[in-house]
């Protein structure tokens, strides 16, 4: 069985925002079950993460699309992850 590396909350937030970004369409609500499959966390925990992201004003309340702040965050997050990959560091 393939071992899944341990992820901290920040990594899960980053992965979740990346999935929401790819799944999201302007004005359309994101389908959570599709997100759950990609993010690989139990549904109840996914809902908790979504609530926390809403409270942080990173995603919209209704559609779960990324807010401007969310888009800025994920852009920075992806750059840092790419930088760490290029530096040969794992996160």
């Amino acid at each position, binding site marked *: 069985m393939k071992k899944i590396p341990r992820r901290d909350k920040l990594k899960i937030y980053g992965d979740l925002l990346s999935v929401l970004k790819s799944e999201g369409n302007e004005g359309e609500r994101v389908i959570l079950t599709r997100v759950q499959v990609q993010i690989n966390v139990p549904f109840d925990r996914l809902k908790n993460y979504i609530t926390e992201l809403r409270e942080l004003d990173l995603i919209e309340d209704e559609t779960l699309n990324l807010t401007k702040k969310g888009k800025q965050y994920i852009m920075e997050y992806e*750059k*840092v992850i790419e*930088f*760490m990959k*290029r*530096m040969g*560091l794992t*996160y």
Partner: protein
Amino acid sequence: MFATSMYPTERMIVEIVATILCLILVKFMIKPYKLTREGTLLGLPLGFAFLGISYALAAISYSPLGFPQEFIWLPFLTRSFAFVFLATTYLFSNRKSKNGQLLGELTISLLVIGLAILLLIAFVAPEFAFNGYSNANVYLRFVNLICLSYIAIYTLRSHVRNPDPTTIWIPFGFIFLAISQYSLLFWYIDSSFSAFIGSLVTRFVGLAIFLFVSYRTFYRSDEKKGLK
């Protein structure tokens, strides 16, 4: 050591440029820590900051201000700590367990405390430090070489595991820094001028690679998005 007294102005300029490059690199290297708040990743900006400090101290030693003879070892010591900080970051970067992370943070903290104690001894009893640290000079260069070789092998293995054209540059950056330290070791032993020049050239090639990778990651991606 004829090379130590040759071209002081040029060498001061070389060290100042290296310091500026390191300062720019610190700005990039601190980003992973700022995002993740993982203590072990602090070794990356600390490493480049200490590397910059060591070059700045070397620049002061070549300047008309000069450097007290008792503190001539200071650039070597800070440079070694820089490479140890970098090696520690790589050593603990793939330990994702809480214990592993704790051990990494503890090591970084101990290194900072160790450096503080060494500096304290140097300022309280400079004569003792001068004798002890000057003799340690050649050993410190070996430490630098071991740390850089470890990082180069680590990053090369990481690249081999997940081959990607973007990850091949950094191992070369560390290899060039290691060659620079190796050349300095030669220069220290036989005062070879070509080894000394070689060490400066390879140092700049190494730092330029880090700068190139950082710039491409943080700025070129923005430019590409802007073009779309």
